[in-house]
């Protein structure tokens, strides 16, 4: 496509197409959208983050990432749609315009680019990173068990051949370390939202322990509103709660780390599940999934704007 208006959001795309889309969006909106390369993947691919900003310096910010598990294709596809939605709605949607008048939004669409490329070239079912594990023929680490929050505790595997292999140490994966470094250096991120698929859940910390966070009541209330707004569009039913109560014990997860860093509004989504396709959600479902998720994202972002801390 020559411009992002003609980009086909209703289909899945290769990593190269995602990178091209990002560059086009930046070129079309030079005073609003910029691309930051926060690091490199193990195989040397850029870790691109789109920054949506209406000005200011180091404003408080909202982080959104999609595709840390590479086979969850509807997440990267939704990320593309979110990027375009932010550009089209800014200036027309009063809520989003108000958010962007005070906050920046950072969006990492291909959070695990090596894994994503591998799902296109070699193994559609690949979930992890692509770094070899010394002493093992099994490749890759689960990048959502590699964060420094309960790392190594129950809820992740120590076996390199497992789909939930935590890695040799916290932040061993450059895809994780790059975000950690970015979040620390920015030091003003107020909401961190990590998007997965599939099982229709909205969750908040913790995943590695049963102890509720100090903000559990507020996080629960916001999740309830976000899910209600999401459901209002197509009737998609979500469950919500802390990770450990809603899904299972999972250690080394992204939002547990961000919460412990002081980012109160830390949430993770599991997107739509038709009950028939799992990770192979048909492309016809991309736009409805993104649309309904956007409503929940807006709820969280609006709450972040109205409840500064």
């Amino acid at each position: 496509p020559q411009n992002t208006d003609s980009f086909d959001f209703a289909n899945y795309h290769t990593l190269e197409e995602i990178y091209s889309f990002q560059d086009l969006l930046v070129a079309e909106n030079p005073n609003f959208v910029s691309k930051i390369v926060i690091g490199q993947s193990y195989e040397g691919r850029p870790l691109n983050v789109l920054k949506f900003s209406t000005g200011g310096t180091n404003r408080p910010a909202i982080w959104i990432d999609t595709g840390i598990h590479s086979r969850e294709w509807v997440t990267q596809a939704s990320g593309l749609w979110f990027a375009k939605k932010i550009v089209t709605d800014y200036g027309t949607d009063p809520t989003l315009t108000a958010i962007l008048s005070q906050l920046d939004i950072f969006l990492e669409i291909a959070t695990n680019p090596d894994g994503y490329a591998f799902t296109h070239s070699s193994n559609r079912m690949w979930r992890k990173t692509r770094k070899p594990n010394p002493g093992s023929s099994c490749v890759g680490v689960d990048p959502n068990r590699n964060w420094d929050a309960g790392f190594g505790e129950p809820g992740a595997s120590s076996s390199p051949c497992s789909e939930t292999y935590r890695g040799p140490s916290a932040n061993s994966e450059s895809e994780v370390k790059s975000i950690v470094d970015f979040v620390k250096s920015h030091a003003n991120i107020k909401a961190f939202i990590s998007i997965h698929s599939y099982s229709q859940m909205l969750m908040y910390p913790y995943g590695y322990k049963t102890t509720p966070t100090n903000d559990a009541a507020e996080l629960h209330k916001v999740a309830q509103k976000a899910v209600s707004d999401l459901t209002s569009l197509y009737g998609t039913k979500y469950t919500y709660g802390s990770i450990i109560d809603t899904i299972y014990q999972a250690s080394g997860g992204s939002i547990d780390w961000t919460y412990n860093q002081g980012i109160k509004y830390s949430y993770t989504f599991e997107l739509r599940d038709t009950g028939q396709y799992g990770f192979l959600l048909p492309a016809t479902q991309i736009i409805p999934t993104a649309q309904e998720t956007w409503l929940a994202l807006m709820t969280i972002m609006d709450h972040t704007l109205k409840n500064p801390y």
Partner: protein
Amino acid sequence: KVTFEGHKVLRIVPKDEVQLSLIKDLEEMMEFELDFWRGLTTVSNPVDVRVPSHVLNSVKDYLETQNIEYSTMIEDLQILLDMEQKVMAGARVPQ
């Protein structure tokens, strides 16, 4: 390119704590053969698992012996993957 001919995705719904524990045992017994798409949570919550064709009979036998109910969510994963590729390729032509 890895292919998945004959791989099925089974949806298992544990009806009590005993079944939950038996499915957990299955997961541990066959960790590197089975691919849990949707992991074990609580009673009544579905578990989706990709089962390669060479272990399909063993898994089904285990579930049936333990009276654990399951249904087939995806009959043949490769057929869906081929369809996905076809849709992607078709979408690229007009562009």
